[in-house]
């Protein structure tokens, strides 16, 4: 029977199937960070269990860590205790860890792919909803809660009911200046924050095939914002080229065997999806959010919507509440909205291509008066690669802050926060109330829009800068 990519990866990992029970699925890679693991390790100790496969487990410190003065002890005692707990747990249970200061430290979803640990056809889990990022390689990758973290640590498996499948086909080519971030924000606005519930999304079509691995990661990363647990993209030559030669990628005969297997993974031509969505790439333009959930977005060229225009009463009420929280008036052109802070980083847009794209926009320009522009690389590797290319100098000369690697202002667990009422343009993934600091107001944007916004001080695309110059 014809099968989808997700169904193939699923069935290759079924340890046990029994009628009326969830399948027991083998997990190839378990990524761990400080925030969602401490209670799981405690559970192991209480039940006198061990970590079954520390060699399939990798920890990194990302959510809590400061992005300045990383050679000093973490100032916040509660953050420090949580990071210390992770270090102690990893030492006790034999789990490899990349700690603050290590050359491989960084955001868990940046670290796995860049090491070549994330490969097609794998099952990847982490106590973090943005684990969907790894689906860009054709892996079945999804976030789990702490009870499940403990379950995977103890058994290297998870009991799961199969997901439904949804094809998101993006036809044609993305217009000049339209990025993967704009595309995924448009997808979320189209299908809604609950549209993907119960589904694995498979992004396909000409526009997806043309994307780099990093752009594909941006797309899959935000699948969770559409309610989907996972997003996937079939592996192809772009995937293999990215992986070839990376630290943990297969070598020699193993490489050949792996590639031969990976080529069998794409969805069969006549495979049936439970749901299908089609998007025409040519209709897309730079996209931003105006509200307090990632489905409340609009083209940057548009205006703040009028709540009364939403047919669904729940959507209307949500829009009214969102505008009140965001301090916005219906009908205001989005490009007239002034921001206080611009955040470039996160597991969505903290990779080298994101930094390059933003640096291209700010090169030779100055950050607008009164605007704070924070650049936070997704990992130490990304940071060093950017510095080798001189990107740090471009940002610093423009007046931006060049920080150390971590999750930073994406979720404001470290000192990088918005103050109440402050407004940001952020390349991260969530614009929830208070996400970037209590009372903070977030507009989700692409790296290019973030950079242009930092220069102009109002939500802007790079094209607006060119118009200023002419």
């Amino acid at each position, binding site marked *: 029977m014809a099968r989808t990519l997700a169904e193939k990866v699923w069935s290759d990992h079924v*340890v*046990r199937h029994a009628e*009326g029970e*969830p399948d*027991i699925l*083998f997990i*190839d*890679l378990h990524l761990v960070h400080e*925030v*969602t693991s401490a*209670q799981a390790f*405690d559970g192991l100790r209480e*039940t006198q*269990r061990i970590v079954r496969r*520390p*060699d*399939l487990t990798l920890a990194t410190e990302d*959510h*809590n860590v400061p992005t300045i003065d990383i050679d000093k002890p973490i100032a*916040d005692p509660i953050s420090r*205790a*949580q990071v210390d707990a992770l270090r102690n747990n990893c030492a006790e249970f034999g789990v*490899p860890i990349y700690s603050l200061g290590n050359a491989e430290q960084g955001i868990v979803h940046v670290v796995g792919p860049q090491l070549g640990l994330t*490969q097609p056809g794998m099952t990847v889990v982490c106590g*973090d909803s943005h684990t969907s990022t790894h689906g860009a390689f054709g892996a079945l990758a999804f*976030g*789990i*809660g*702490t*009870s*499940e973290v*403990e379950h995977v640590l*103890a*058994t290297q*498996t998870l*009991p799961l*009911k199969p997901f439904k499948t949804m094809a998101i086909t993006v036809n044609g080519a993305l217009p000049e200046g339209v990025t993967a971030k704009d595309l995924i924000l448009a997808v979320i606005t189209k299908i809604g*924050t*609950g549209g993907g*519930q119960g589904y694995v999304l498979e992004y396909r079509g000409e526009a997806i095939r043309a994307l780099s691995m990093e752009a594909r990661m941006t797309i899959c990363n935000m699948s*969770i914002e559409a*309610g989907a*647990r996972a997003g996937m993209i079939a592996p192809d030559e772009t995937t293999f080229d990215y992986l070839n030669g990376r630290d*943990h*990628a*297969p070598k020699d005969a193993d*490489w050949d*065997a792996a590639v031969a*297997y990976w080529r069998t993974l794409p969805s069969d031509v006549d495979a049936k999806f439970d749901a299908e969505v089609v998007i025409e790439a040519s209709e897309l333009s730079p996209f931003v959010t105006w509200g307090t*959930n990632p489905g409340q977005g609009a083209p940057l060229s548009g205006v703040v919507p009028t709540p009364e225009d939403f047919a669904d009463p*729940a959507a209307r*009420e*949500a829009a009214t509440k969102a505008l009140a929280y965001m301090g916005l008036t219906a009908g205001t052109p989005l490009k007239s909205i002034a921001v206080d802070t611009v955040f470039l980083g996160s597991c969505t847009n903290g990779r080298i291509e994101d930094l390059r794209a933003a640096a291209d926009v700010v090169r030779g320009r100055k950050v607008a008066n009164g605007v704070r522009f924070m650049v936070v690389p997704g990992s130490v590797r990304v940071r060093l690669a950017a510095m080798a290319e001189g990107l740090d100098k471009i940002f610093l000369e423009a007046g931006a802050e060049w920080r150390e690697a971590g999750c930073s202002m994406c*979720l*404001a667990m470290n000192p990088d926060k918005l103050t109440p009422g402050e407004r940001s343009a952020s390349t991260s993934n969530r614009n*929830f*109330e*208070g*996400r970037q600091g*209590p009372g903070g107001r977030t507009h989700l944007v692409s790296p290019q829009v973030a950079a242009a916004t930092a220069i102009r001080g109002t939500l802007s695309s790079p094209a607006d800068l060119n118009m200023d110059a002419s």
Partner: protein
Amino acid sequence: MEKFTVHSGTAAPLRASNVDTDQIIPAEYLKRITRHGFEDALFAAWRKDPEFILNQPQTQGVTILVAGPDFGTGSSREHAVWALMDYGFKVIISSRYADIFRGNSGKQGLLTAVVDQEVVETLWQIIEAAPQTQVTVDLEARTVSAGELTATFEIDDYVRWRLIEGLDDIGLTMRHVETINSFEAARPTFKPVTR
């Protein structure tokens, strides 16, 4: 995990859709390394508002939360479930939940009942008109009743069985350790290891 069969209690109406995990428990509170003691963190930002529903005298002691669609969207933090349970909630009623939140709830014994949005609306009317109405959630019969209303709710059969029996997932999987061993032995050699 405690066994769950029938629960009766008073309920609070939360008239909001897309109640995300950052609202249920802001990230600031995720730095704690314990599994309990999160009651102060629940809806921490909203609770600063005196008008918030859980700050009203009539909702003190509630054990059931009746919320708008897409409850629990956002992050995978199980702290959201711990905070709801530490506060005293035993049951959430909504028309739709985020997948990870619902999975986490099932692991901890917090019942997430799915009902039609019309049932949510009716429940809101009942408990707003008479906040002391006893709402009864019967997991075996899959019904929720309050005043004149009796409605069925959806829940996965397997999760229902585990909640009724109060079973620990890891223990259940450990019964099949031999099967895991054989699967593991047959894995392709090209799969990566982390060290």
